[in-house]
């Protein structure tokens, strides 16, 4: 874009200075360099399509210069844009370098103009959007919505796997019980022996082995089983030692026990 408005440059420059002075106070009010460029471009008072990018670059660079003179801290992106516009300016002013295969100054300028035009268009679109009738402000929804009652049926389900894992959980819980706890229902032979030794003195006559079971162990089947075995083993031990005699009338008949007579 070799500038056709070259003659206006000085005028533009003055306007840009004025604009820059007005704008400088509020540099933070801009949403970045593109926003600033768009605002500056308005001083050209032309359709954005016909904007002089060269003039705009001048305006922007002027603005940055002013800001620096006033020692205003500029964000890095403003300075990056300034550097880029200075580059663009040189591209636009110098004859194209045949060695350089990068984009031409005109192409870069056209793209910047497009960006500005697009940003402007989006701002106008946003304004038009917000000017539309809005829900809750201009038109309204049902004030007493009759909510759809959901008749919710909950269907419970479980798989065979759940079932088996559940069962496994219960069973393994037992298996993991500390060993000492298992002994609650176990009568050891030592315990039975101690008990037999203290009781045998009174058993002068034949008595059923079952009567020697500790109290409370004869009703519960598990305890009865354990106590019977232990008492039987203890009585065998005592018989071996020659303290008692054992007899059984026939197979599966009750085993009987009595103290061996001293004679």
């Amino acid at each position, binding site marked *: 874009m070799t500038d056709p408005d070259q003659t206006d440059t000085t005028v533009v420059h003055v306007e840009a200075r004025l604009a820059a002075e007005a704008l400088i106070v509020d540099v933070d009010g801009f949403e970045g360099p593109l926003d600033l460029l768009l605002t500056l471009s308005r001083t050209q008072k032309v359709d954005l399509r016909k904007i002089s990018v060269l003039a705009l670059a001048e305006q922007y660079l002027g603005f940055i210069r002013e800001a620096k003179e006033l020692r205003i801290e500029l964000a890095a992106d403003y300075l990056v844009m300034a550097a880029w516009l200075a580059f663009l300016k040189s591209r636009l002013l110098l004859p194209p370098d045949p060695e350089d295969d990068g984009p031409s100054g005109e192409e870069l300028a056209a793209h910047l103009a497009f960006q500005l035009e697009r940003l402007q268009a989006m701002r106008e679109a946003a304004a038009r959007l917000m000017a539309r009738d809005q829900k809750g402000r201009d038109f*309204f*929804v*049902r*004030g*007493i919505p*009759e*909510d*759809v*009652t*959901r*008749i*919710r*049926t*909950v*269907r*419970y*389900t*479980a*798989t*065979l*796997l*759940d*079932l*088996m*894992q*559940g*069962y*496994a*959980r*219960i*069973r*393994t*819980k037992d*298996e*993991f019980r500390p*060993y000492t706890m*298992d002994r609650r229902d176990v009568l050891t032979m030592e315990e039975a022996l101690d008990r037999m030794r203290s009781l045998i003195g009174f058993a002068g006559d034949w008595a059923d082995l079952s009567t020697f079971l500790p109290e409370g162990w004869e009703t519960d*089947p*598990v305890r009865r089983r354990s106590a019977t075995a232990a008492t039987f083993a203890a009585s065998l031990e005592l018989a071996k030692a020659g303290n008692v005699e054992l007899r059984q009338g026939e197979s599966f008949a009750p085993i009987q026990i009595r103290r061996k007579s001293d004679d």
Partner: protein
Amino acid sequence: MTDDAQEPESLFEAPPEGEQERMVEAVLFASAQPVTVADLNARMPHGADAARALEALRKRYEGRGVHVVRVGDAWAIRTAPDLGFLMQKETVETRKLSRAAIETLAIIAYHQPVTRAEIEEIRGVSVSRGTIDQLLELEWIRFGRRRMTPGRPITFVVTQGFLDHFGLESARDLPGLKELRASGLLDSRPPPGSDEETDDEDQTEMFEDASEDDVPNPTMEQEE
């Protein structure tokens, strides 16, 4: 409505009747509460007659999908009662059974017929009424015979519905502990000597039964 002929054309001229009806319609529609006639008049432009507009609106909605109805001394738009069925939506939600329910069900399946006290003994915790009720409601368990022991407690057994749901021919198809172990469902090794030890004669019986059927269980394979 006072119609002051003397009054010159002014800002206070009442809107045409059709317009008043539109206004009442919009206000009734958008209000979160039923609206009284007084309130309508207060909201509408000066000179409007809400009562009359309301009457016209009410007529207009006769036989429609929604009606203008009186609620106390206020008015509202409501769905026609005969269309209430459209306001219901049936949804079926599938939820997993709770752990307590699964365990209880498993015990019933493996030990049936089993009393509540026995279930509690096996689980080591008490079984809530709700858990049993839920399983009964699902029709996965039912009451069995009373046990011929003191107190004559009722027993529970699994139902045909249970077998159908779990794809079992009979409760005997349930894999035993050995199989559970073999299939990796039980990764614990039992302490030596405690193998399949049970607390109860019924259980032992039931349990041995189950593990005797140790033909590979196809259902179980599928489930994995």
